[in-house]
């Protein structure tokens, strides 16, 4: 049973109050994009064993989407940030670097 700090409400929220929304920072491909790009956007996922950038919705709370950085192997949460941030904040990236100095993902 996961819990995250909703960056909007700034409180701990229980998984039962949230809705998962899959990989974050996907670039939407609209009309005119190539078949490959459109396929990548719709279907191809990183699905890493390790650090995952993902989206969650505080559905039973403020109703806002937010970003989470979570390890899919240990469930460690490296931080949460706004859905309108197109990149993860430096603080979170630093925390990840500290955990995985060689840049490789967790085994």
């Amino acid at each position: 049973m996961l819990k995250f700090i909703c960056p909007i409400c700034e409180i701990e929220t229980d998984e039962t109050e949230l809705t998962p929304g899959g990989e974050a920072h996907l670039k939407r491909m609209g009309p005119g994009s190539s078949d490959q790009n459109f396929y990548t956007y719709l279907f191809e996922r990183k699905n890493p064993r390790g650090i995952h950038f993902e989206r969650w919705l505080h559905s039973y709370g403020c109703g806002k989407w937010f970003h989470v950085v979570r390890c899919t192997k240990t469930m460690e949460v490296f931080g949460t940030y706004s859905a309108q941030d197109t990149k993860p904040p430096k603080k979170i990236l630093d925390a990840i670097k500290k955990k995985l100095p060689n840049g490789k993902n967790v085994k």
Partner: protein
Amino acid sequence: MSDKLEFSNNLFTIKDLYLPGMVSIRTHLFDKKFQKIIKDILKINVPNKLEFTFNKNLYLAWMSPNELLLFSKNLNEILKLITIIEDTLKGIESLVLDVSSSRTVFSIKGSLWRELLAKGTPINLCPNKFTSKSFRRTRLGQVSTAFWMVKTDQVYIVCGRSFKEFFFKWLCNAANEKSIIKFF
């Protein structure tokens, strides 16, 4: 549906506050102009995150960074206020809607209300976490709700109107005197 929903036992009194008034105000809450307007009209401050402010019969609660819920037990008061607020907010990006019919409010009286609610919501209801200022939206007994404390021994809970009979049954079940823990 107009049948009143009421329940009481030795510990709790649960009541549907039949037809109170509610207004949803959507705008950017941090906007200073907006804050002033609210202060002028309602004589209360825009509440902080996860909190509510009040003035006699009026409660103004934080729903999200761009939504407030204005609540009064008196529907007419609210209906009057809506027009005023709407008019005053004209220049500001906002949406003011009467939602009095969308939702209903239950009052739960009884000093053990924290215990009752903790049967259904995962949020931390310890007195130092959920205080007399707090306003929380949560999933409670499978229903989307919001609640706040109006007296030390009384809370108000909002839920969607169509859920109210189900939710009322849930509350009555949770009010079971035989299942008291005295946790808080």
